[in-house]
């Protein structure tokens, strides 16, 4: 927690100290109230002095006004500290996540990161706010009331000293028993939620198998067990108020009883007994507040730990210093016995990858699902680092490059066609901030996307919704290709990015990519038709190279390639294909 709290103490130390301080001042005033009331009873009523009573009542009202001032000041400081704290932590989190490597992103999962930045942080923020306001106040009032009792009468105060631990035992006992039970309820709720979700996403399958009745039974079973857990925790939590009520009242009875004896003996006044009675009531209110606060703090600490874990993650990749490789070097990309292993994986995702890609050539990467195609191309931009062996770009080890400089050479079209909320132009400018409309249209044309833009209202100013929801899959894919082309990359990587295109558009795209000179193109695909005209084809099988060569060479020499090809062109390999090639 220390690292997280630094965000609070470093920038908002003043607020962090002043907020509880003013809260404490307010509490002191509250503690003085019973003394004033005692004075009214003993001095005012006792001597029948109306003027004194009025003065004391005005004093009580003045306490109220000053207390209001203290409280408002405290609220302001605590709100300010909490607001600034959350901003500071959230900024740090966002920056940290920007530093994450692909491997770290895979391991953590983006959805947890999002929860931590939103839900978890909100919880911590309100925890900080509440803590600054109440954590010091409640114990202060409880112990303050006891100390005040001691100033009135030592023996009577012992009743307080006895009652407080018993009360604390009840309050915290109930809390510690119920917290794990509440977690169970959360778990039960999650199960019910999952089943509901599953039934909605799988509605076609469930109805196809006419499982509706089974599902209803299953759900009502889960729902029943949730209800049972809720009732169980409810029964225990419901004990807190009645038990504290009984304890406080017993303490009050004891107070009156012993007070009676001491008043009789002349040690204590009637007003003092009333004051003690009031202090006891104050303790009850504060203890319940304190219990709620502690529940809140426990939750905040749990969330804070989760946030801190993200902040503590060390950036995995060390940046190099070189900005450029060797100009004019024959090979744009070289893999030298490179292997890749994902964190916590038992086996290599890629082993002994060894091949070269000449400048300006087209390289096809093919293989079945899970054969490591995407992993391979992601190593070029150092999105994943080789476990063993090396990857070279322009004759220089990728580890020696400044990562930013290395990635500026590469244009990637990812498997999942993602676009961002904003105009088409803004999306295209992801490739190059300074691109002119002319350059953008050129890229769109190459990507077979020019006509889509022309048909949209506003052309380049057409708004794309978050995730590109207002575009079809094929349109999105063509835009992501254009976005990479706007960059005018030295190396262009198409990671299975034509899957949503029909064959005709796919073919037109490949033809237009051929016109790019000086750009080394990597095409990842499952279809041999997409890569058969590449200068070099790398065939992957289960993370290993099964063959390297041209289409014709591989058909002769590589069993895996032949199988893939035949599976797509069954019975056609006897010549028809040649005809269609026209």
């Amino acid at each position, binding site marked *: 927690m220390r690292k997280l709290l630094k965000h609070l103490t470093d920038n908002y130390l003043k607020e962090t100290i002043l907020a509880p301080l003013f809260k404490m001042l307010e509490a002191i005033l509250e503690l003085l109230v019973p003394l004033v009331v005692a004075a009214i009873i003993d001095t005012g009523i006792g001597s029948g002095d109306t003027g004194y009573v009025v003065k004391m009542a005005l004093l009580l009202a003045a306490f109220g006004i000053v207390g209001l001032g203290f409280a408002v000041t405290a609220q302001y400081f605590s709100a300010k500290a909490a607001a600034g704290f959350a*901003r500071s932590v959230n900024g740090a989190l966002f920056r940290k996540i*920007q530093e994450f490597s692909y491997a770290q992103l895979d391991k953590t999962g983006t959805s947890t990161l999002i929860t931590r930045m939103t839900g978890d942080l909100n919880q911590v923020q309100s925890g900080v706010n509440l803590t600054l306001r109440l954590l010091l106040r409640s114990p202060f009032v409880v112990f303050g009331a006891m100390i005040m009792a001691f100033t009135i009468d030592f023996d009577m105060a012992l009743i307080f000293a006895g009652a407080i631990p018993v009360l604390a035992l009840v309050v915290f006992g109930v809390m510690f028993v119920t917290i794990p039970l509440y977690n169970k309820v959360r778990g039960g709720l999650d199960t019910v939620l999952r089943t509901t979700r599953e039934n909605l996403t799988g509605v076609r399958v469930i109805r196809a198998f006419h499982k509706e009745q089974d599902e209803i039974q299953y759900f009502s079973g889960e729902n029943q067990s949730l209800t049972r857990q809720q009732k169980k925790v409810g029964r225990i939590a419901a004990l807190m108020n009645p038990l504290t009520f009984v304890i406080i009242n017993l303490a009050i009875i004891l107070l*009156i009883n012993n007070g009676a004896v001491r008043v009789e003996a002349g040690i204590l006044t009637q*007003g003092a007994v009333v004051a003690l009675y009031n202090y006891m009531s104050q303790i009850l209110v504060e203890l319940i507040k304190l219990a709620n606060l502690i529940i809140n703090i426990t939750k905040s600490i749990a969330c804070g730990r989760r946030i801190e874990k993200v902040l503590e993650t060390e950036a995995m990749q060390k940046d190099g210093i070189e900005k450029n490789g060797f100009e004019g070097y024959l090979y744009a990309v070289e893999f030298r016995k490179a292997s890749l292993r994902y964190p916590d994986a038992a086996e290599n995702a890629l082993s002994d990858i060894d091949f070269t890609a000449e400048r300006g050539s087209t390289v096809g990467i093919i293989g079945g699902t899970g054969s490591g195609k995407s992993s391979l191309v992601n190593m070029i931009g150092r999105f994943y680092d080789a476990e063993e062996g090396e990857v070279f770009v322009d004759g220089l080890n990728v580890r020696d490059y400044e990562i930013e400089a290395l990635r500026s050479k590469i244009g990637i079209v990812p498997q999942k066609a993602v676009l961002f909320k904003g105009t088409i132009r803004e999306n295209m400018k992801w490739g190059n901030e300074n691109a002119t409309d002319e350059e953008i249209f050129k890229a769109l044309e190459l990507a077979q996307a020019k006509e889509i833009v022309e048909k949209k209202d506003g052309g380049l100013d057409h708004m794309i919704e978050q995730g590109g929801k207002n575009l079809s899959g094929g349109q999105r894919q063509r835009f992501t290709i254009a976005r990479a082309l706007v960059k005018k990359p030295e190396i262009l990587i198409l990671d299975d990015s034509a899957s949503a295109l029909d064959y005709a558009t796919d073919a037109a795209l490949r033809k237009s990519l051929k016109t790019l000179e000086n750009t080394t193109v990597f095409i990842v695909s499952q279809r041999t038709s997409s890569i058969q005209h590449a200068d070099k084809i790398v065939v992957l099988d289960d993370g290993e190279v099964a063959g390297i060569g041209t289409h014709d060479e591989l058909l002769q020499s590589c069993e895996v390639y032949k199988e893939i090809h035949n599976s797509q062109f069954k019975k056609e390999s006897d010549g028809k294909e040649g005809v269609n090639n026209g």
Partner: protein
Amino acid sequence: MAEKKKNPKTLLKVLGFVKRYLFFIFLSMLLAAASVAGTLYIPIVIGEAIDFIVGEGQVNFAAITPLLIRAAVVAGATALCQWLMSVINNRVVFHVVRDIRNTAFDRIQELPLSFLDRNPVGDIVSRVIADADQFADGLLMGFTQLFTGVMTIAGTLVFMLSINPWITLVVVVLTPVSLFVAKFIAKRTYNMFKLQSETRGEQTAFIDEMIGNQKVVKAFGREDEAIEKFDEINLRLEKAYLSATFFSSLVNPSTRFVNSLVYAGVGLTGAIAAISGGLSVGALSCFLSYANQYTKPFNEISGVITELQNALACAGRVFELIEEPAQVSDEGNKVLGGTDGDVSLHDVCFSYVPEKKLIENFNLTVTPGQRVAIVGPTGCGKTTVINLLMRFYDVTSGKICVEGEDIRELTRESLRSSYGMVLQETWLRSGTIRDNITMGKPDATDEEVIAASKAAHAHSFIKRLPDGYNTVIGEDGGSLSQGQKQLLCIARIMLCLPPMLILDEATSSIDTRTEIKIQDAFAKLMKGRTSFIVAHRLSTIRDADIILVMKDGNIIEQGNHTELLNKGGFYANLYNSQFAV
């Protein structure tokens, strides 16, 4: 779900669910009354006792002791009532919510697909889970606090009036001030909260977009731009949070301030009354303790009412779901005996929305054992045909017949169980691999399950999982790859061997080598059975008996592979383009 007008009858509907527990509610009210009476009575007893402690040598022990015993007994009884009341309230609320959830879930099973397709899953889930939960919280709070709160106010008034009407007047006049203050602040801060939640929403959306696609951000080196934009939103959120939180947190100190004024007022008037002999010291201390108790429920009740309104709004959203019209009942329909796969479509017209016609005058006759393939560009209505065959949607006009019977006159169960369906979007439920495979045939033996998995080429990867067929997979298949999930869905069908088969891009995520093997298995399986296949890869449908080429909802070509190629139309173009460069 269409935004509906706020239904004033929501409360009545809630009462409909509560009705069953009327006895318990009655009991809870009795207990609440008892515990409030006890809570209020104790200060009186204590006050009386204090009056017997006048000063040195003036203490009447004989009078005090029975009073204290009475206080102890009342305290014990009150506490018991409080606890029983909470337990009963818990019971009623959780049972009501359970019943509402069950009803909502039953309804989901009966809602037409057109409704479920139109409404986002997240929205419906949040109605059944989050809204129902909020409703429970609100209802529980309402039950426990609203009633006791009102009782406390009423009881306090009665007790105070019985002791001294003038001091009571001070309390009654001053207390509502705190309500006004609270209301005044709430009104002023509403806009600040709105701004805060809007800014927070904006930030969440931004985080969602950027972190959700962090890899793309990195690939394009946009980290700095993202940070810059994030900081800008973050700073605005800080400001919005500060003003909303600070100004709204004024409610508490302000009402406390009003309360302290009430307290001072009671002290003043009470003491003056005591001096003139109209009030005992014990009664004054009792009054002071009431002054605290009387103002508290006011603050609570205003909170409870907002909470209850919120709860009703949430309940309204759940009821909207429950009241959606169900699909047409198939009660009394004929049960489809057996079928050899004789399917025919007569002049079928269909559209999802009336303004946009999709399928028009579609005719097709399929004889048993035929393979029908449906091809065409994305969005041309291929999947719609499947929706109609399975009767997920009903035709707008025309009819679809199986064995000569209009499918609208058959039970859904008998119709659907004669089809085996594998969709592109795989669906697996959390549970073991075996549970998932045996979905269509829960009593299958191990041998049958393994045989089906082998036919689907899933056995080898299942075998390698930690617990084999008993491996538990998470929601939506958890860590399985898309291809593995499709293999499991295929195994599921291989196990129950229905007379007809529907494959909607069923092998799209499986590499082509495995696909060929699975197709051979299917070919064996489907010998003599009718099948409908939707496919992207044209290589997979070449052997079909009938190929339907669809474009914009219409069947533009129909025939077998050779016929269509020779025709040189749309299909031929589509087919040849995959070999072009």
